[in-house]
Structure formats: C-alpha cells, structure tokens
C-alpha cells in the first residue's frame, strides 16, 4: 500500500481566493490614496493659478470667487462657530448622560435609555437640518427677538448639531466609564466617599483618556457635518462672530457650489478641492489625535 503524500500541496484555488481577499483589503488603501491624490491635484491647480495667492488664502478675510478673492477665514470662522456651539451642547450633556447611564442608572433603565439615545444617532442629518430651520430657528427668534436673529444663523445650526453629536459623545464616554474596574469604585466607597465623589473624583479621572477621545471625535464630526449647516446656517460667506447672522461653513460652501452648475477645470471647481483638502486634513488630524490620546493616556487595569 502506498503511503499518503503528506507534503504540502499547492492549491491554486486557495491562493487565488487569498489574493482576492487581499485586494478587498487593499481597496481601502486605494481609497485613501484616491482622496489624497484627487484633493491634492486639484488644490495644486488651484494654488498654481495666477488669481490665487497662498498667503491670501491663509490670511484673507474675504471669500468671493466671483471677484477673485479667496481668503479662507470667513468659512473657517463659521465652521468654528457652529462646531463651538455643537460642543457647548454635546460636551456637558453627553458627559452627564454618560455618568448617569454608567454610574446611576439601573440595568433596566439603561436598557431603555441607551437605545433611545441611539435613535438620535441614526436620524439622517438632513432631517436635523429641517429640525434646525423649522423649530430651533423660530425658537431662537422667539427668545432673542426677530430683529436680532436672522432666519439663517450659525447658532441654530450649531445647537442642533450638538444634539446630533450628543449620542456619539455619551456612548463613547460611557464605554470609557464602564471600563473602569469595579474595585476602584468599591475602594472609594470603603473610604467613605459618596456616589458623586466616587464618580467625579475616581471614575471620571480613571476614564479621562476615553472621554477626551470622545470629545475630539465629536469635534471632528462637527467640523465635517454638512447638511445641517447647508440648510440652516446661511448661504454666503460672511466674516462675522455674531452667531445670529447667516454665515457659510466650509462644508456648506462645498455643498452649495457643487450643487449648482459647475464646470470642470474652472477656478470655482478647483477651489472646492482646496477647501476639501483643508477639511480632510483637519478631521484626519483630530481623529489621529483622539486615537493617540487613548493609546497614550489609557490607564490599564489588570
């Protein structure tokens, strides 16, 4: 009787499948490369143009493509203002909700409250835009007076954006708080600390890296959010720090201009990609910082 051949056989089918699966994974690298190349190439064309000056782009206070002014600050201030309002709403509320869910709520209360908050995260952003324009803006006008608050304004868009980001911040923070081992809390109780003291002085500091990461990711979402600001923040670049007047954010501008008739190879077209590059770099930096914070400052308990 012949011995079975136990040597490793070559299996072309297996190799082929593995190659295909690798290609699937590699596609993500191609996507990133695609983004970088596309944004970079068109941005280079933009900055190479005679009408554009890099110094004016970085320092200029006027964004009027029609008359050749390409200063990015009006768009940046509007983006910062909407993001600021979003964070003012979502940071305290998100962290407080996370502390309640993780430290105070019973298992049953949590099993009801958490999914409801998650519904908020699943609502499409265009619906939030409708909400901002039809409820938040009239509310602000009711409180601060119709003359002070314009129909399109950054405050309304920012506040609603805060509601949109709230579930993200609270669920990420809650994950961080829940990961703090029980023994730390019990040690604190045994020393006579109250529940509040334990939560604020023991659990929150122990989970701080995760909480900061949640804030940064929330900020990155706010900077990149498009539909709420496109609907409610205003349609025209405006250099202002007044939250009650309309101003256009970077994303809002990209959406409005590309939604119209746009001819390729025009300066308008290229300028959008330069703005896209700024947006991409800022959000990428925020996301990477957040990951670094978690990796660097995480307290590890065994």
């Amino acid at each position, binding site marked *: 009787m012949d011995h079975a051949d136990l040597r490793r056989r070559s299996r072309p089918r*297996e190799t082929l499948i*593995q190659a*295909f*699966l690798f290609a*699937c*994974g590699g*596609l*993500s*690298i191609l996507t*990133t490369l695609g*983004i970088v190349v*596309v*944004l970079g190439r068109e941005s280079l064309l933009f900055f190479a143009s005679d009408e554009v000056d890099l110094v004016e782009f970085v320092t200029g206070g006027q964004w009027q493509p029609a008359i050749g002014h390409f200063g990015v600050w009006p768009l940046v201030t509007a983006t910062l203002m909407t993001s600021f309002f979003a964070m003012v709403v979502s940071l*305290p*509320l998100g962290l*407080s*909700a996370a*502390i309640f*869910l993780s430290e*105070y*709520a019973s298992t049953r209360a949590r099993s009801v*409250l958490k999914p*409801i*908050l998650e*519904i*908020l995260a699943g*609502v*499409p952003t*265009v*619906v939030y*835009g*409708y*909400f901002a324009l*039809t409820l938040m803006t009239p509310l602000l006008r009711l409180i601060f007076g119709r003359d002070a608050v314009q129909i399109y304004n950054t405050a309304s868009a920012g506040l609603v954006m805060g*509601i949109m980001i709230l*579930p993200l911040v*609270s669920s990420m923070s809650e994950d961080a708080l829940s990961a703090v081992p029980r023994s730390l809390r019990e040690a604190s109780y045994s*020393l*006579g600390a*109250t529940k*509040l*003291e334990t939560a604020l002085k023991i659990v929150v500091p122990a989970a701080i890296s995760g909480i900061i990461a949640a804030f940064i990711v929330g900020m990155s979402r706010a900077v*990149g959010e*498009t*539909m709420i600001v*496109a609907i409610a923040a205003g349609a025209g670049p405006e250099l202002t720090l007044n939250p009650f007047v309309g101003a256009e954010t970077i*994303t809002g501008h*990209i*959406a409005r201009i*590309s*939604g119209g008739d746009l001819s390729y190879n025009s300066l308008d077209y290229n300028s959008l*990609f330069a703005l*896209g590059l700024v*947006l*991409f770099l800022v*959000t*990428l930096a*925020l*996301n*990477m910082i957040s990951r670094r914070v978690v990796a660097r400052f995480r307290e590890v308990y065994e």
Partner: protein
Amino acid sequence: MSSILRSEANNSTGELPKGIFMPNSAKRHRLGKLWRVVFLSATVVGLIALLALLTDVLNGSWGLVAVQYRIDPATLADRPLSELPKEELVAIVEANVSKGLFRRFEREKPFEVRSREEVYALVEERVTQEEVAHSWPLSEALFHREEIERQMAADFPDAKLEFKSWISGAFLTRTMSSTPALAGVRTAGLGSLWMIALTIVFAFPVGVGAAVYLEEYAGRTWLNRLIQTNIDNLAGVPSIIYGMLGLAIFVRALGPLTSGAVFGVSESNGRTILSASLTMALLILPLIIINAQEAIRAVPDSLRQASYGLGATKWQTIWGHVLPSALPGILTGTILAISRAIGETAPLIVVGASTYITVDPQGPFSKFTALPIQIYNWTSRPQDQFRNIAAAAILVLLALLLTLNATAVLLRNRVSRRMG
C-alpha cells in the same frame, strides 16, 4: 480626606466625637442628590430633543389648508371624483375644457388607451385645478382654529378650509411637480432604492472579503497594520469628502463608463445612479468591514480547529464554518451601514443628483434623485407648502430606516437566542 486624618490625629482618646468620622456628611449627600438630578436631566434632554424632532416633523406633515379650485369638484358630480368610473371622468374633461384642448389630449394619447388613473390626474390638473393658497401646521390647526378662520375670511374668501394629510398614497406614487400639493416622492424613492441596491452589490462582498482577510489571513506585517489603521481612519472622513472623490473619479475620470457610453447606452454625463452607488459603497465600506471583523472575531476558535482537524483547507473552513456562524452579525452590521447610506445627503449633492426629475429611473445609467435630496431641496425653498412635503418625505425616509433597523434588531435577537 486630609481633614479627616488631621482631626483624627488631634483626638487620640480612642473615642470618635460626633461629626468627625463623617465630616459634612449631610451636606455631601445633599450635593450628591443634586448632581444626580443634573445627570438625569442631561439624559432627559436627549429624550426631549428626540421627541421635539418627531413632533416637529409630524407637525409639518398634517394641517389645515386653504384650497381654491378653478371648478369646485362638488359641482361636477354628486359623488367624490375619486369614486367615478373612467367614462364619467372623460365626460367631465370633455365638458370642462375647450374643444381644441380636448382634441389635443386625444391626439397625444387616445382616451381609450388611457388608464382611469391617468384620466383622473388629467381632471385634477386641467379641470378642478386644485390650488393650495395657504397652509397651517398641525399645532396651529389644533390650537388656533379661530384665528385661522378669521384669516381665511380676510385673505382667501373664495377658498375652502380643509384638513390635509400631506403624506398619502398619492404622495408616494406621484412624481415631482413644481406645485407642492401635486408633488410626490415616487422618482426619489425609486432612485434611493436603485442606489441602495447597487451599493449593496458593490460594498457587501468587498467589505466582507476585506474583513475575512484582516481577521483570518493577515499576519502581523506593517502592510496589514497599515490597512487596519487606514480603515479606522477612513471611517472618520467626512461624507462630503467621499462626494468629492466620487465627483473627480467616478463622474469625471470614469465618465464614459459610469454614463454607460461605453456600452452604447448614451447619457450626457457621469452623474448617474452608478456613480452615486460607487461613491456610497466607498463611504460605507469601512463601517461594513469594522462590523464584519467584530462578527468574525466572535466566532470561537474551536470551530476552526475542529474543521482543520477534519482536513479542511483554510478556505473550506472559512466558507463552510466561520462565515455561516458570523453571518447574522455581519448582516446586522451591514444593515446599519446601509441605513447610514440611505440618509446620507452631502455626497449625493456633490456627485450631482438632480433635483427635478419626473421619469422613473430605468437602470444604473439613469440620472437620479433620492429621498434625502428631495428633502433638502424642499426644505431649502421659502414657501411653507414645500416645508409640508419635506416633512412628509422625512416620514417616508424615517419609516424606511425604522423597517431596516427593526430587521437588524430582530436578526441580533435571533442570534443571541441561538448562541445562548
């Protein structure tokens, strides 16, 4: 804490006087209760926001309208027009439009071959010519009825006050129109469905493939680590950036392909369903991969070992054992990613969805519009009635998302029951 220690040191008599063992105990507990309320209210604010959002949408979807007709339908027949058979509707058209116009309708498409619905639409459009002069949202209709009636008498003396549900069967089946009361979401809904179907076709196999590669094949090399980090980073890229990628690559560079010109199905440019689906597929790919990875990671190793022990190859193990037991988890993750894609608006704007389309999409190479695009478009218009149909379209979108998410939850529950 230090104050306790200090006071203890001062009292070395062995007896603890009152108030020293628990300094400020009452005050500290009061503070604790106060903050508990603060934390609870933060959670409640989230719930209130959700409630306000839903109320706001419902408020816009129903309400009172001031309706004016060129010819009041009540004078045309003794029954509601919607109950009349086709023949009577044709007679109404003949009696109420000029002879020349009637002949033109007949020439365009003979009345014998028109369906009853088409004739009915013709009656609405040409005979009764219903026009909504003004609309009031549900809240005002309920609480300020008298004020509305006064305003009606002053501003629209010829109009009739009617309660209108902006969301209706007709709203679902009608195509776009520049008159809000006659507009519907048919083209947008079909556009969304086409786009989603194609997105799944592209993203699901590639996403699961990448997840299988990363979990089952990838060794600890720098390349594989790069792929993993890269996928995590891609998940955080704003959706509008994907739109710009799609515009430059799929619409512009691959225009001949995505417009169907290469296949002889000629369209003017690459702003098609295909381009939108490819863009959307890239957008949800990281989500699908990350979710599928978790599902695959949850499959116990003993299953793999048993399969190898019986002499199965790596791929036989994955295809026959790992994937089937990870499938429910993978599907749940995919459904969640897809519901993100359905609501996503920004990339579609950039890729070039059209806002005014009246013909149903015919295939991947059609121009398209989608539900969120219509919501955006209608919300951005100044007239109140466009807000009403925007609210109705939001209800349609939310219903679609709810169905999808309910499916995901059901799947998850079935799995956890089977595992437990």
